[in-house]
Structures are given as C-alpha cells and as structure tokens.
C-alpha cells in the first residue's frame, strides 16, 4: 500500500506486467499441453523470453510438449519473427530473440544465433552463448569453440561450451591446433563436464602444457575424479609455480588421494601462505574422504 501511494504509476505498471506475464504463461502452457492450437502470440515483449524459459525449463528436448509448443509458435509466425529480430540493431530485441530460440531449443537456428557470439555488446553475446548452450549439439559447441578461438574467452562461453558439447567433442578438440588460451578453456570445459574420457588428454596437458594449462588441468582432473592422475598431480606439488602447487593440492584433496599425504604435509613449510592453506584444506578433505 505504501509502495502504491508513493509511486502509483510504477506500481500499476508492475501489476499490469505481472498480469500479462501470467496470461502469457497460461497460453504457452495451454499450447504445450495441446489445449490451444491457435496461439496468436508475438514473442517480442520484454518479458516473453523469460516466461518461455520458465515454461520450457522442465521439458526434455524430445518431449511432445516442447514439440507441440514449437509447432504452435511456428504456425503463428512467432518464431519467424524471433529469427528476424536476431538481425535487429538494438540490443534488447536481439537478446530476447536469442533467449527465445534457446528456450525452444531450435536446433535449426544455430547458424542464425552463432554470429551473435561476436557481437560487441556483452548482453547479446552472452545471450547467444546461453542459447547455444541450451540447444546443445556439435554445431552449437563448434560455434562456441570458434568464438573462444577468436578471443572470446569468457566464463560464460566456457560454461556453455561444457553444456553444449556432445560426447567426445571436447576430447577430440584437444587434438586440434588452437591459439594459446583455447586449450585452457577446453580443459575447464572438460572438468565442468566431469567425463572420465577426457582424463588422458588432461593428464598429458598437466605434463606438457603451459603454466596456465597445467593449473587448470589439475583442477579439472580433480573435478572429474580421475584417480589415475594422482601420480602426475602429486609430481606437480614440487613445481616452482605456486599457482600450480595450489591447484595440485586442491585436486588431490578432491580426489581423496591418501598416497599423497606425505607430500601435502611437506607443503606445510611452503613459503607461500596460499599453498600452505591449500595443503591444509586438502589434507582435511582426504581425512574426511577416508572416514
């Protein structure tokens, strides 16, 4: 009541928006469950993409509900409109369109969304990356990898690469030649995916990679839980780079590596306080792991 009294126009607008959101949500759900086959919905409102994401969040990509919803929106021309808005000059329409396409997992629109990864505006490129992550598949992952290769190394891109990459995509990408930094991103993505198939590549990265690649490789092996990497990671505890020592200690803690306890205790006397702290935490994790 106080809010309405102090800013009545804004409060009314908010109330109207909530009502509109609720109405849109009901119509989209009705379309998804086959209760409404003619939905004159335009997907260009400010909140449409958010509502679509909420409605489709629990739907599997091959579910009948999602397919029905896509078919209804396609028949109404709403999806054509969204595709068209990807070429808009303004930021918000492009962001909304990318989110819409991602929410509907329109695999055939990957080639339309991919160019937005190079957009100067951060919200646009992030929305495009998120859309490709939701759509998934080799084409999406390849678009994200190419963007990373051309300098777009950001957490969002790496996270979405991890999400979209199909089996063996990251593993086979390790064998390709990329500019510096991409291999680190791949290692991070492999760690986030938590697939043991990447262990061999990550181990060779820890053995032969650059300083940064080795640091990330160690952490990724820890996340994956690759116990075969324990000797390699333990050897990294003696490296001069303190970041690598920290990373190796953390990885050994994550792996519950009992065999590395003497080497970790040795790090209690390390001259770097972060290394000492990491070793202490790792030992605590190993003890907890054992018990």
């Amino acid at each position, binding site marked *: 009541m106080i809010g309405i009294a102090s800013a009545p126009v804004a409060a009314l607008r908010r109330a109207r928006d909530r009502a509109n959101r609720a109405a849109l949500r009901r119509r989209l759900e009705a379309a998804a469950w*086959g*209760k409404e*086959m003619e939905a004159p919905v335009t997907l260009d409102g400010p909140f449409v993409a958010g509502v679509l994401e909420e409605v489709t969040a629990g739907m599997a*990509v*091959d579910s009948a509900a999602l*397919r*029905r919803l*896509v*078919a*209804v929106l*396609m*028949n109404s021309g709403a*999806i*054509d409109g969204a*595709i*068209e808005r*990807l*070429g808009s*000059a303004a930021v918000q329409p492009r962001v909304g369109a990318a989110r819409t396409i991602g929410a509907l*997992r329109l*695999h*055939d*629109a990957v*080639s*339309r969304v991919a*160019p*937005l*990864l*190079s*957009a*100067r505006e951060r919200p646009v490129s992030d929305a495009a990356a998120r859309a490709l992550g939701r*759509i*998934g*598949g*080799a*084409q*999406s992952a*390849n678009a994200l990898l*190419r*963007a990373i*290769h*051309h*300098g777009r190394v950001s957490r969002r891109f790496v996270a979405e690469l991890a999400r979209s990459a*199909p*089996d*063996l*995509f990251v593993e*086979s990408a390790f*064998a390709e030649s990329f500019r510096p930094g991409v291999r680190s991103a791949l290692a991070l993505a492999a760690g986030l995916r*938590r*697939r*043991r*198939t990447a*262990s*061999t590549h990550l181990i060779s990265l820890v053995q032969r990679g650059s300083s940064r690649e080795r640091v990330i490789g160690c952490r990724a092996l820890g996340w994956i839980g690759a116990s075969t990497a324990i000797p390699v990671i333990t050897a990294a505890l003696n490296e001069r780079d303190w970041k690598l020592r920290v990373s190796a200690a953390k990885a050994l803690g994550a792996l519950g590596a009992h065999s590395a306890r003497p080497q970790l205790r040795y790090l209690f006397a390390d001259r770097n306080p972060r290394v000492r702290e990491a070793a202490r935490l790792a030992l605590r994790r190993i003890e907890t792991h054992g018990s």
Partner: protein
Amino acid sequence: MQPRMQLGAWKSVPPRRPTLVARDRPADAGFARRPEPEAPSFRDMTSRMSTLERAPVFFAFQDSELRAIARRLTRTRVPAGEMIACQGEPGDSIFFIERGRCRVVVEKPPSLVTVSVLSEGEFFGEGACLLGRPHQASVYAQTDCHLLALDMPNLNAVLSSREENGTDELKRFAEQRFNLFADISVQATWGQLLQEATVVGVYSPKGGSGGTCISLNLVGALSRRYPGEVLLLDLDFPYSHSALLAGLLPSSCLARMGDVPAGSFEDVLLSAVLYDSGGPMILPGALRPEEADEVTPELITRAIAALRKTFRYIVVDLGVTITDSTLALFDLTQHIVLVAAPELSAVKSAADAVDILRQLGTPEDRLTVVLNHRSIKPAVGRAAVERALKRGVDLEIEFDGPRPDQAAVDGVLLSLSNPKSEIARGAEALAALLDFTHGRPRGGEDSKAGASEAVTGL
C-alpha cells in the same frame, strides 16, 4: 490434438532482412578465419551412408532420411586403447564405427567382463542417449577407430520429421541390448562368484619357443601360491610330454574320456589327473599321437566345465597348430599367454598369431606376450619384435643356460627347484601378473596387493 504443422517442416526460414548483424558492426569478421565445417564431400557421404546402411535399426529408413542423418554426423578419430565411453557416466551421442574395432566392457570390481567386440558398421551409446540412463558399460577403442557421432539434438532434428517415430525402434533396440549386456556380464562373472577356476591358455605359434617349459613352470609358480589348486591341461598335440618333463608317469588322458557317461565324467576325469608332490597337477590330453583326434571341442568344453569347479587356475598348454580344439579353448580362456622366441620365423608366426587373436576379439589386457630367449645372443631385438607384433612385449625371460634342458632330464620344475633361475623368475612374474588380473582375495589375504608388489618388484 496434433499440431497443424510438423516441426521438421520448418528448416531455417530465411530472414527477411539480408543480414543478421548490422552492417556497421564488423566484429564477427574474424570468425571467417576459422570457417564452419564444410558440408561432407560426395566420397565422404558415400562412406557415411555405407556405415549407416549396415546398422540394422536403419533398415526401415528411406534413403533421404539416411542422407539427412549422414549429413549431420561428426567424424571423430580415437587412437587404440582410448576410452570412448565410461560406465556409469551420462551420454548424449550415438557412435557408429566407420573403421576399427571397439571393446565393450562391464566393470564389476574386481573383474572386468568384455561383453562385446564391435566392428565396422556397428554402433553404441544408444542406451545412454535414448534411454537417458548412464552408460551400462565402458567402451574402449581396440584399434585406431574412426567414429561417426550423432548427437541428441541432431538425432531429434532428423527423427522428429519422420512420419513413424524412428526413436521408438532405436529405443527398443537399446532396451534389448541393455538386457543382453546385463545377462552376459552376470553369466561371465558366475565363475568368479562361484569361485571357479581361471583358464589360462599358453600358446606358442612356433615349435621350440619354450611354450611347454613356460606352462610347466607357470603351473609350478602358481602351485607355490595355491598348492593343490592349479592344473596343467596338456593339449600340445600330437606329442603331449608335459607329464614326463615334470617327472610324472601318465596312465590315462583326456582323449579316453569321450565315451564316459555324463554322470561319472567328472570323477573319471579327476582320477586321470597326475599329482606331483610339489603341488602342480597335470592332465595329459593324449598319450599316443593317434589319440589326439579324439579330443574334440565338445570334449574340451565338458572337461573345462568340470575342472573349473575343482581348481583355482587351469593352465592349458596349446599346440602349435590352430585347430578346432584350439579355437574352442580360446573361447573358454580368460587369459592367453603368447610365447615367442626372438628368432625371425618365430616373430613372424607370433605377429600372425596376435592378428588372429585380435580378430577373435581377445581383449588386449587379456593377452600377455612373453619373449623367451633361447640363446645368449638373440637374432632379433626386443624393439624389432615389438614393431613386428605392433604391441609391447609384456614379459622378457632372459637366457637361462643349460638349466631348462637339465631340469627336463631330471624331471623337475625350475620354478620349484631353483627359484633364482631366469625361467623361474619369469614364471613367477607371469603368475603375479595373472594373480593381479584374475586373482581374488582368499581368507583375508590381499592377493592383489601381493601380486602388484611382485610385479613392481621385478
């Protein structure tokens, strides 16, 4: 209610505006440096189509549908020995084998059961991809493999446009294979669960390489670990002399058991086993050369089934020739030891034998190659042998002087009488390796830990 328009009817509708990004925004110009993967060439498409056509689940698909799938496949190369799918992890792709062989393994600690060896035209990963279950088995590349991967979004994009839902057939197939692998892995571990014997075949493709000597001493080394629980089945036809070399005098053999009724088969078979005071037991395959033909694959299968219940290890000394009986034995063995001498003809024969064993689907970790030096100065070096075999030599036994010949004359086993001899040390290492791979804890002792120590101690 069915939607009026099918999803597949819409294929990347061209936008009304000619460009997607504003003209004054050249930021994506750099992307041209790393171009999109090109559409597959005609030759590539032919290869993809022929791989897909071999997959039985796609028999009902029309050419246009197969072409649509083929276009969406991603080619991946996997070197031999690499893991392609990990048991228990989720998966989102189906892999078609374009070239090479893959081994499907169910890991049931402490054992590892190979449930299938897949070759060109076959596929895997459909269970995790379509049924949403974690991978039922791990898949390893047995040779260098060229795989064609079809991920879930691409699969849906193709199958959703079909009138009949193609995923149903694939899901049915995935379910069938899931049940089949589950059954095979359970059956294969029965032996382990029932504490049945591990059957080890010792095969030497060239006479005079020392196959019989190694099998006898291996039995001796295993008997030191498990007295009274190790048997040597001598199928080195036509002259099976293992018993004589161990100082035992045979009176009966497997060849004479063909007519024994099923009820008394096991008793008669065990009564033919020769016992040595040191521990090893020997069952001769045939006493006279003409009796070798009586040992049929059926008889071998019956005998192994009966003997597995009584012993812990059955070491089978196989002959030089590959007969039906040898092939039957290869099927029944859990491990094969290939003995080669560093001589030109022996290495050539060993390379052929390794190829044959690979074609028979013998997993790499179930094959051990032993290089047995029969002279002071070998004609072929280890590196050359490994190049010829296209794999590493697992164990090398140094020249042991006149000791093996003297032991044969004396009727003793070096692994029991002279543990410091090269042959005895080699046999001990082999026993440790077998114990490490197939051993099971026994009465509180950790045989695996002991075995690994023995292996690393060599």
